[in-house]
């Protein structure tokens, strides 16, 4: 395909992915790799490289907005970043020794999981967790309740949460994704951190996690700058536009549709991986 057309189409696709991802809160990065591999016949490794730098861009670009809302908890985030970064280096090292068909199949499972998680998501309130390590590690905090007051919370099952975060890091390094869904699982479901604190802190952690595998991706040549440029600019712009619009519109229908799209892409990635077409 001629360069200018290819770049324009990739940019448009990435913009749509970023917009939908941020409107639905499911993240745009997750559909980037299927978009590139299935839609544009890009090799899995180039797609992973472009996705990794896009994940750094969107996570960092959105951070300022999240911080303003006052939900993210920098201590929880950094304590768990130790696990995600070590996991990411391990995962990125593993990626080089894993065939693309296996990467595609693991990725398919992650997509199906993300879609499933988005359907069963409910916001629970902090239920009075008491954990002495939460205090000792200074991870307890409070967040705005939206009526001018604050709600205090603590952190539970820190070891299990840390181990799950290591797994999230491995997936991030292995596939070049942010693995926000697994991070939210670790914080919200295992450590019983309030949902809004979990999602914003997860976003905060994604950039640092991705940076840990970036050295290995760059050295292996996964990041082709000519391909990565329109992808990261498109996703970044799309997610910023989506974040602005989110204040005005609630989009449950769009969210359901996007979850089904993600699930379908997951199946297609698995099938294509199994057939060795990727």
């Amino acid at each position: 395909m001629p360069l200018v057309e290819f770049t324009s189409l990739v940019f448009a696709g990435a913009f749509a992915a970023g917009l939908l991802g941020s409107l639905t809160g499911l993240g745009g990065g997750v559909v980037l790799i299927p978009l590139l591999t299935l839609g544009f016949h890009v090799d899995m490794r180039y797609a992973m490289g472009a996705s990794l730098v896009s994940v750094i861009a969107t996570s960092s670009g959105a951070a300022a907005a999240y911080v303003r809302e006052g939900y993210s908890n920098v201590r929880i985030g950094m304590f768990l970043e130790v696990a995600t970064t070590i996991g990411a280096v391990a995962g990125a090292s593993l990626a080089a020794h894993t065939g693309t068909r296996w990467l595609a199949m693991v990725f398919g499972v992650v997509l199906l999981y993300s879609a499933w998680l988005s359907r069963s998501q409910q916001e629970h309130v902090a239920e009075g967790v008491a954990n002495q390590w939460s205090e000792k590690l200074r991870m307890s905090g409070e967040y705005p309740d939206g009526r001018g007051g604050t709600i205090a919370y603590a952190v539970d099952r820190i070891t299990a949460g840390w181990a799950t975060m290591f797994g999230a890091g491995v997936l991030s390094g292995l596939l070049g994704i942010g693995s926000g869904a697994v991070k939210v699982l670790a914080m919200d479901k295992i450590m019983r951190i309030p949902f809004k604190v979990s999602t914003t802190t997860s976003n905060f952690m994604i950039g640092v996690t991705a940076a840990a595998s970036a050295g290995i991706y760059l050295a292996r040549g996964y990041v082709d700058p000519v391909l990565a440029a329109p992808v990261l600019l498109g996703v970044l712009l799309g997610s910023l536009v989506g974040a602005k619009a989110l204040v005005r519109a609630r989009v449950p229908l769009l969210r359901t549709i996007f979850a089904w799209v993600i699930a379908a892409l997951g199946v297609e990635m698995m099938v294509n991986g199994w057939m060795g077409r990727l």
Partner: protein
Amino acid sequence: MGGAFHKEKMGQADERMEHLMGLLLRAGVLLAATVVIAGGAMYLADHRGVHVEYRHFAGHPISVRHPAELAGPTSIAVLEVGMLLLVAVPIARVVFALIAFAAQRDWLYAAVSALILSVLVWGMLRGG
């Protein structure tokens, strides 16, 4: 009371730190994106009518390893600098956290930041 007061102060210092971190991240991403846009525009202008495909993996090792190579910036080199700037943004955030926690005399989290930083450096060295 003393404990509660300390906690309150810690909360305020954290809020300020997170606010500055957010600004740092946004500024870094804007800078990197600007460089990528410039490099991309240069590349498109240089390679009009070229056909591309990424079906086969050949690998694109980063070629900018020395500042001297930037003397006459080729479009690819500018794009690569943009990518490297982008990767540097979250790393800068961790450096900032290390300094901010040390200034608060929060040695536990200064150590956590230093540990993350060493993992990031380890990842870079493993790759290079």
